[in-house]
């Protein structure tokens, strides 16, 4: 019982192995124990490697590596969250970007070296948790240890005399401790009590639940998917791969696995702060949609807002963005209406929602037509320059640069619908002029007419399916529960000794010990227990006794 005399915060003597039950988790860092000159076999090296891996020091270093490895993931643009910024980085620093890309620093959280760190940590965790679970099951059946000979040398101790016989005094003490649900063991002249086994259980629960979190995240990565879709008011889409703008399936997802629901957008409204210093800050977004779980099924209405996704067939649809889609009608040189529809423009700033987009008219004769445009929801003339000063459509103006020629839409790589490839086009000699709703622009050279007939609003929807979500939540709750148990339950032992004094009466000693009192408070508990035990001993308190220690 040498370990027991160590005060709670003193370093353990390296020469004496700590008492298993009372050691802090992993306190004993494993060292390759071998006599000098003895060669290790393969098995010996494996064993040594496993011990190194599962030692607390290695776990600490791996934890640090995990933290340090995450840093570039937050400072550099990441493929997963912002692919556009990554390509921009490649464009502006090509040499540096190639080196960083080679180290997977643009995809840190999917990088092999990051996976290596957390898989090693996982192995270290398993190697630490498994033996401890076995040990805990063993120790749960063990009775408390024998009472040490000299209780006065424990961190907490009181003694006093009583008129009770030693056996009766011990019985009374045992009754008090038993009522407090201590586990008891008694011998000649002593009682040992122990409590707080849940602490180690909580610690294990915490670590096992962390493993559960990792497994749940893995499940989501294998069987889940994420997708994006931009939807203009008055249109609808079905959840199929071809109808989605972006589709990021998990490794084991095939296009046939997608839940076949449809969503139609009837109306979108946004409201903004209309006065004061926060002018233009969004106040509320609302999208009125209709959806059906299967094509041809019954449709139901739903009001989609930012923190309230639509849940259909286990898939969730989120409102994550909005913008304007000006509506244009284009008549070509031959007098035919070759284009009539809404064109989504992408916001380039948030305070006035200035948006940019492209109109492509491949069916125009004699030449294909293209336009690059800027949409200003609330256009204001600022020193001869138009600017949008508010995100709502108070004065929606569009300004276009016109092109004619070959749009190259049937050859070459697929184009973005939001930008115009001007390689095969020539700019028409017409100055961009701000158009208000209903105004037209006649193109030079008899190429046709464009009319700005109005505008629609669009929303961008994120569609996610993650079967690992519920397991992750359950693991998270277990992590927290384990953490609280291991921090706030203390493993503690209380010992009572009673012997007949030479001068008559019985000397009672009460000693207490805890090693894992992270939150503090054993002082209070011990003095309370000691007081209760001495109160049970009739005739107490005796003559020469020390007062119980004051708690904090």
């Amino acid at each position, binding site marked *: 019982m040498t370990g027991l005399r160590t*005060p*709670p*915060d*003193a*370093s*353990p003597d*390296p020469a004496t192995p700590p008492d298993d039950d009372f050691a802090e988790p992993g*306190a004993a*860092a494993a060292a390759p124990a071998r006599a000098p000159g003895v060669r290790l076999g393969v098995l010996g090296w494996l064993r040594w490697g496993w011990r190194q891996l599962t030692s*607390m*020091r290695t776990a600490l270093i791996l*934890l*640090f590596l995990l*933290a340090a490895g*995450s*840093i570039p*993931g*937050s400072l550099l643009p990441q493929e*997963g*969250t912002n692919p556009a910024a990554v390509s921009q980085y490649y464009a502006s620093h090509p040499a540096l970007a190639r080196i960083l890309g080679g180290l997977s620093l643009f995809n840190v959280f999917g990088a092999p070296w990051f996976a290596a760190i957390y898989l090693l940590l996982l192995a270290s965790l398993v190697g630490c948790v498994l033996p401890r679970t076995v040990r805990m099951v063993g120790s749960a059946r063990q009775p408390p240890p024998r009472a040490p000979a000299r209780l*006065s040398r424990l*961190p*907490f101790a*009181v*003694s006093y005399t009583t008129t009770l016989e030693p056996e009766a005094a011990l019985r009374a003490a045992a009754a008090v401790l038993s009522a407090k649900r201590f586990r008891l063991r008694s011998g000649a002249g002593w009682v040992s009590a122990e409590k707080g086994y849940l602490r180690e259980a909580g610690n294990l629960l915490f670590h096992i639940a962390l493993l559960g979190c990792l497994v749940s*995240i893995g499940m989501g990565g294998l069987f889940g998917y994420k997708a994006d879709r931009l939807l203009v008011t008055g249109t609808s889409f079905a959840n199929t791969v071809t109808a989605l703008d972006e589709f990021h399936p998990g490794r084991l997802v095939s296009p046939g696995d997608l839940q076949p629901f449809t969503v139609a957008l009837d109306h979108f409204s946004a409201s903004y*702060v209309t006065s*004061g210093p926060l002018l233009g*800050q*969004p*106040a*509320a*977004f609302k999208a009125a949609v209709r959806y059906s779980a299967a094509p041809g099924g019954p449709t139901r209405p739903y009001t989609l807002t*930012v*923190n*309230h*996704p639509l849940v259909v067939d286990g898939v969730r649809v*989120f409102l*994550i963005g909005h913008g304007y889609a000006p509506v244009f009608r284009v008549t070509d040189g031959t007098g035919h209406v070759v284009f009539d529809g809404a064109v989504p423009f992408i916001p380039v700033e948030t*305070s006035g929602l200035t948006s940019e987009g492209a109109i492509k008219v491949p069916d125009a004769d004699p030449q294909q037509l293209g336009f690059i445009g800027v949409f200003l929801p609330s256009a204001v003339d600022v020193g001869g320059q138009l600017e949008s000063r508010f995100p709502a459509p108070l004065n929606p103006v569009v300004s276009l640069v016109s092109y004619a020629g070959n749009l190259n839409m049937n050859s070459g790589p697929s184009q973005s619908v939001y930008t115009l490839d001007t390689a095969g086009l020539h700019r028409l000699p017409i100055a961009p002029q701000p158009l208000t709703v209903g105004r037209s622009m006649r193109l030079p050279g008899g190429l046709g007419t464009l009319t700005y007939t109005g505008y629609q609003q669009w929303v961008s929807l994120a*569609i*996610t399916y*993650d079967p690992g979500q519920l397991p*992750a*939540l359950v693991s*998270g*709750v277990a992590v*927290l529960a384990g*953490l609280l148990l291991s*921090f706030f339950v203390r493993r503690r032992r209380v010992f009572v000794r009673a012997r007949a004094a030479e001068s008559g009466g019985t000397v009672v000693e009460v000693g207490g010990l805890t090693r894992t*009192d*992270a*939150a*503090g408070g054993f*002082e209070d508990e011990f003095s309370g227990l000691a007081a209760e035990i001495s109160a049970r001993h009739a005739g107490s308190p005796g003559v020469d006794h*020390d007062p*119980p*220690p*004051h708690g*904090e």
Partner: protein
Amino acid sequence: MPVNTGLAGVSNDFLLTAVVIYALAMLAFACDFAFGKKPVKAAAVRAPALVGAGAAGPDSGVAADGGAGAAGGEDARTALSAPGGGARTAGLRGAGRWVAIAVALTSAGLALHVTGVVLRGLSAHRLPWGDMYEFVTALTCVAVAFFLAAMIRYRAYYLGLFVMVAVVLVLGLAETVIYTPAGPLVPALQSYWLAIHVTAMTLATGVFFVAAVTGIAYLFVDRHARRVAAGLPTGSDGILRRLPGPAALDRLAYRTVVFGFPIWTFGVMAGAIWADKAWGSYWSWDPTETWAFITWVVYACFLHARATAGWRGRRAALIQLTGFGCLLFNVLVVSLVIPGLHSYAGLT
């Protein structure tokens, strides 16, 4: 509902007054170090007697350690647990006149601080931690409240100067540099998870704030104790001699982190649940999320390091301060400079 600008103005007045009163409290704590009662040497003599009597363990509080290390000053705790402890009285009065003044000022400042934060919420009809300025005013409020609680529970008056210096600095910066007028929440923040997630993060940050201050004090005291042990010259050590021993500071820092860590864990999880509801993914490695994770990992390192031979003491304290550094980096740099999903600071 429109913002009540009159009420928002009153809130500002309250907060500015609180800063001034905190500054006065800081001065009073400094005066205690300068002019307060000198350390009582007798404490060093009494300590062995206490242990010998078996009445108080090494864990019985700040005083026993302070006394044993001959570094502690007068402390009500020693007087309380030592029978017939003599002339010194318990409680605030035992701590000296300057401490009493400082504690009174701190409490008054806290009352104004809380009122200011509440009025800010009332003026905008919502919880008053929706932007960076409000977050900082709320977390300093938690730090001061937690410090007062630690002072009552552990008699940790000596931390006052350090906590108040930090609070005055941070709150002063909040009032001048990152002040944002009161307004409604952007739609992304209109969720009851704001109350849960941001409240937990604010609480945990305030608690870690106190732990970091204790950790810094520990590093100085530990260095001083080493120099004393090695017989090296210690220079002017008036303040250090009045602080409790390194073991007591280390334990206080540890208990503070143990209190804050589950709150932080809960806050990160609540954030993940909210992210799941708002953005469709419970974890998307957004920069702010990443740094919250890094902070969590570093504090987890601290908790493990403290249980590992060879990493205790100085190294563990440095890890703890690294953790707080990560937290500060997240609050001050990541959310203001690096674009991400958490860009709600209200600063452009």
